[in-house]
């Protein structure tokens, strides 16, 4: 029999539906693969029973001749930022250690309703703040990939690094991610998998631990464009419990996949040609243009003049929103409480937050508090919001000349854990190509393109018009078909 853990979402779903294997066999295989892979530290908790129970439900439904959901029989990893009923939800922080929600996030509930099961809760950068998975209270996630000729532990990217590591290592066929400023696309690029962030508002934020509410979006991470289309279809949809949820129909992205790009224009933003970008990444970008041209698209130059200001604007807007969102962790309603002997309420707050938040989270709360404080609000926060408007306008103007934009996902391939920690700014710069689409709320995807001379994966990014996930997926599919990316990490764990 085929090794079931080598299969992706579509093959598992279709195989279960046809009766080639049972959902229970699939869940059992992946549970075993997860148990063997503790060295990756991809999971904070594992939930093999959840996966088995969901599988049994699917097998029973099939035996009874009932219609199966679009994710029926597929066990997935759930980023530990989604509230899961009865299962610890931590955002990889000490302050939420032990927090066990009594409710289910909308996105995870939709996935269970579609027949998926949960292998466990995936590790991430603490409160999704980080680009390397080194800020988790529960330890770094190690990428399954190694640099050729080196045994150094590599970064799986962040913040959805448990998700990217698990999917690349074939211990999960797919996983949820969330993207605030690149947290789906950058880890996908680092590990040779696909990941799409839909238009802001497509996926409900209800039950997702909030980081920066005007930016946070959930999305799928999987090993093919088709698998992402299927899973995104199960995750998206209007939710009255999220005030920013889009009240519009969810297209059948899977059914409409089409890699024939004749008549489509692909924009190449000239400002993304930045100093400090690896030569191999620039070459893969050229290759990407050739692939899309081969698929029938016309390549056009476009300009996004405010690109260089997107990242600094993001590092005002996101921390400002985070400082407000994270005010709720006060040691009163849930999570950690640190109550030194004889102190009052205010000191309890301060002690609890000092003990519960990691350094990067504190840094961002302090920045956010500062830029929102009296006397500095206009100079920093209002100016950043205006620059955000200009970044979004750049995209709107560019999309008058093209249908989809092609760019690198990251300026470098993955790097060894611990090698980028000298200065927080160095790490921030890794999201330079990912952040602009986040600020503009646009659908954006990373697909694997090639491996570099060190044997590490490189990704290409596609950015689409608002609500045009289909255009992004279709261009991604055209690249996937031509890139023929089959490299996978050799098992060392």
């Amino acid at each position, binding site marked *: 029999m085929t090794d079931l853990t080598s299969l992706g979402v579509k093959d598992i779903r279709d195989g279960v539906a046809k009766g080639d294997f049972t959902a229970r066999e699939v869940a059992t295989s992946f549970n075993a693969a997860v148990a063997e892979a503790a060295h990756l530290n991809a999971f904070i908790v594992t939930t093999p029973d959840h996966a088995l129970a969901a599988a049994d439900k699917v097998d029973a439904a099939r035996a009874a001749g009932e219609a199966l959901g679009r994710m029926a029989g597929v066990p997935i990893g759930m980023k530990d930022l989604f509230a899961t009923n009865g299962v610890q939800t931590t955002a990889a922080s000490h302050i939420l250690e032990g927090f066990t929600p009594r409710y289910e996030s909308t996105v995870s509930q939709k996935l269970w309703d579609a027949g998926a099961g949960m292998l466990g809760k995936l590790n991430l950068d603490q409160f999704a703040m980080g680009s390397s998975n080194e800020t988790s209270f529960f330890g770094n996630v190690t990428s399954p990939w190694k640099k050729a000729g080196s045994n150094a532990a590599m970064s799986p990217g962040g913040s959805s690094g448990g998700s990217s590591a698990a999917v690349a290592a074939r211990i999960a066929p797919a996983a949820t991610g969330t993207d605030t400023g690149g947290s789906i696309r950058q880890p996908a690029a680092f590990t040779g998998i696909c990941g799409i962030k839909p238009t*802001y508002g497509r996926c409900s934020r209800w039950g997702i631990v909030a980081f920066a509410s005007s930016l946070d979006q959930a999305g799928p991470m999987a090993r093919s464009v088709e698998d992402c289309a299927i899973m995104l279809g199960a995750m998206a949809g209007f939710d009255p419990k999220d005030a920013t949820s889009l009240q519009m129909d969810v297209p059948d992205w899977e059914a409409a996949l089409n890699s024939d790009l004749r008549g489509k224009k692909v924009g190449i933003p000239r400002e993304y040609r930045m100093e400090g970008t690896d030569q191999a990444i620039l070459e893969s970008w050229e290759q990407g243009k050739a692939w899309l041209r081969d698929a029938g698209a016309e390549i056009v130059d476009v300009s996004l003049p405010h690109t260089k200001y997107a990242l600094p604007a993001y590092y005002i807007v996101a921390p400002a929103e985070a400082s407000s969102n994270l005010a709720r962790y006060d040691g009163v309603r849930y999570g950690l409480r640190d109550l030194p002997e004889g102190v009052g309420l205010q000191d309890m707050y301060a002690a609890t937050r000092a003990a519960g938040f990691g350094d990067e989270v504190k840094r961002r709360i*302090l920045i956010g508090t500062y830029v929102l404080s009296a006397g500095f609000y206009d100079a920093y926060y209002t100016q950043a919001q205006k620059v955000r408007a200009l970044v979004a306008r750049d995209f709107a103007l560019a999309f008058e000349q093209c249908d989809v934009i092609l760019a690198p996902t990251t300026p470098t391939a993955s790097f060894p854990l611990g090698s980028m920690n000298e200065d927080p700014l160095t790490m921030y710069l890794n999201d330079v190509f990912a952040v602009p689409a986040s600020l503009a709320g646009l659908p954006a995807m990373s697909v694997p393109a090639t491996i570099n001379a060190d044997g590490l994966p490189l990704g290409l990014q596609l950015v689409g018009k608002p609500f045009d996930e289909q255009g992004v997926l279709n261009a991604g599919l055209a690249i996937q078909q031509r890139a023929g990316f089959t490299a996978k990490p050799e098992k060392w764990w």
Partner: protein
Amino acid sequence: MSVDKATVAKIASLARIRMDDAALERMVPELNGILQWVEQLGEVDTAGVEPMAAVIPNTLRLREDVVDADPLTGGGKREDVLANAPAAEHGFFGVPKVIE
């Protein structure tokens, strides 16, 4: 603009994060590095540009004016709400004494 130790101490106090002297000393250059970097936004001509708060045009909806319209977010959830509290007493959140 740059911050000194006293300013960082004030921000930390506003953010309700206890920080000792060593932590404050460490944070000063880190915050200054970030603040100096974001200062480049000052170069951008934003005259006449409206600050963007919501990126995808959307309007706030009104829900039905009905009690517990959505049972998940309605009332009657005291036990669920208190289930994760570090200290729950008599059906309330327990906190240290706040009045002398």
